[in-house]
């Protein structure tokens, strides 16, 4: 298992604004790490830097403390599976999977056997003589994964592995990637712009904005302890109340809220929709609101509330049961102290 370490890694493109500057990250061995960020955040650049398909302007990249900056892509042992599969259309499925072995000079019989074995692992046994054009998108994705795994890489790099798949194929592919990654114990880096993809796949997430590491941690950290409003918004946070800290209370236009985290420079408090509760009587951290909209979301209900004291403040809450409140009726919301995130 290989630890990948990025030290002050810098890659700039003179023509476009995209760049990664002085990037530091230690990617733990044998786990899945997601590089998450919107387009232009530099996540794909980082992946290509690790793969050796791009050379950094400066900085260092090590696999198990050995610098690989000057190692060409084909000798690096970091295999990348591209987003749109890129299964070679002029080769059969079996030849595609055996491609990396052929390049390494593995004998024909051996590489064919290994290709067959790995195709069985991705549930494509018996497909070796098919043409890629005969496969569905999901099957091509599995060929691409098998083709990368068969070379037994030190580091597996996956570029948006779930983004081209529909909902049920996503789940299948997610489970497959997880089980193969655990079986082979490969250090895996996944690049994605989709926070859901990152959360369900990764053991830890590195969130990038504008070529910089914004937050690094386990998936749950990004929901429970986002470091900024931008992070909270990227992970689906919608409720933000402006204000500032006064001693132990957070002062806002709709009243004072007790918070557990006393961050002095804070300018917002936030709460996730599922943590907002109805209150029966005015106590600590309650807020008078009027129901604006109620939407049935299939498995839960979503409510949008307008604060009585500040009509521009809209809060969203979700509940698995119908609250039996009609639109424009008044209600009292409770924002539990321990769930309030201070930003």
């Amino acid at each position, binding site marked *: 298992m290989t630890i990948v370490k990025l030290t002050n890694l810098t890659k700039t493109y003179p023509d476009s604004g995209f760049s990664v500057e002085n990037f530091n990250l230690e990617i733990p061995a044998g786990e899945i790490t997601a590089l998450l960020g919107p387009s232009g955040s530099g996540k794909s650049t980082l992946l290509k830097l690790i*793969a050796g398909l791009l050379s950094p302007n400066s900085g260092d990249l090590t696999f198990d403390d050995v610098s690989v900056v000057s190692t060409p892509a084909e000798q690096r042992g970091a295999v*990348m599976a591209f987003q749109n599969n890129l299964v070679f259309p002029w080769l059969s499925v079996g030849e595609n999977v055996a491609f990396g072995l052929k390049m390494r000079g593995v004998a024909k019989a051996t590489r064919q056997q290994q290709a067959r074995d790995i195709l069985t692992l991705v549930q494509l046994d018996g497909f070796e003589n098919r043409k890629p054009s005969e496969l569905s998108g999901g099957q091509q994705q599995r060929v691409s994964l098998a083709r990368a795994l068969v070379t037994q890489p030190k580091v597996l790099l996956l570029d948006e592995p779930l983004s081209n798949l529909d909902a049920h194929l996503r789940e299948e592919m997610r489970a497959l990637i997880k089980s193969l990654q655990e079986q082979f114990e490969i250090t895996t880096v996944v690049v994605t712009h989709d926070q859901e993809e990152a959360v369900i796949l990764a053991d830890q997430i590195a969130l990038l904005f504008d070529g910089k590491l914004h937050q690094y941690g386990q998936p749950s950290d990004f929901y429970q302890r986002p470091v900024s409003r931008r992070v909270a918004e990227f992970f689906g946070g919608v409720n933000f109340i402006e204000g500032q800290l006064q001693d132990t209370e957070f002062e806002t236009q709709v009243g004072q809220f007790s918070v557990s985290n006393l961050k002095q420079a804070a300018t917002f408090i936030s709460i996730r929709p599922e943590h907002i509760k109805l209150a029966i009587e005015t106590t600590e951290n309650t807020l008078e609101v009027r129901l604006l909209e109620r939407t049935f979301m299939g498995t839960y209900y979503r409510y949008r509330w307008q604060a009585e004291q500040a009509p521009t403040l809209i809060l969203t809450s979700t509940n698995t049961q119908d609250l039996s409140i009609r639109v424009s009726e008044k209600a009292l919301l409770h924002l539990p102290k321990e769930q309030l995130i201070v930003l």
Partner: protein
Amino acid sequence: MKRLTKYAGVALIVLGVLAPFIPILIWSFARRWYFPAVLPTEWSIRGWAYAFSSASRLPQALWQSLLISGVTSLLSILIGLPAGRALGLHKFRGKTLVEFLMLAPTIVPAFAVAMGIHVVFIRLGLADTMIGVILVHLVPTLPYVTLVLAGMFANYDVNYEAQARSLGATPLQTIWYVLLPSIYPGLIVAGMFAFIISWSQYILTLLIGGGRVLTLPLLLFSFASSGDNNVTAALSIIFIAPAIVLLIISARYLTGRNVSLARGN
């Protein structure tokens, strides 16, 4: 019935293509063929016998033609491949100008170009040499080769190369196992273009070769102007043969290949 019409149609097309060659074929075997006779009144193989005798210099001309056209095609592809790749894959400042300059040799009369080149080649000692002739043949072949390959690269995904590198292919292996299989139909077409263009060059070969470099068209013209119809006809058929062979090869290989590529995409 439907099948019959289809075959009749194909037969008509074949006849239309081959019809102009029929008189040439007959001429190559005719001794006496005067108006109003529909077919020659006397037959002979004198034309063919002379063409293949040592006096006709056919072996020399055929060999030099094959060599010049072969090397010209090869060089055209070697130069046209990177040029076509740059034009097909990249956007850069002045691209339209480069494209125009690439095409210019097809617009400017070859004679004008060759006159200027001739002066330079005399100074460089390239005039009257086979290398000089090959170099000047590149002038008309390169635009076609580059444009055919540029078209091929316009539909080429370079990420395939990155994917191959990442899977462990060296740069050379990437060219051999990824680039060439991807653009192979374009390479064949471009190579054949270059071969045929070079094969049928007359003025450029005459000017730069100065008569010392003898190719098939030069030999053919000398017999045609001397009025010897039998030998001219026999040589014409030999001259046309490679074009027909290349046409058959391309029809056999390229159609099937293109279909599978189109499906692949």
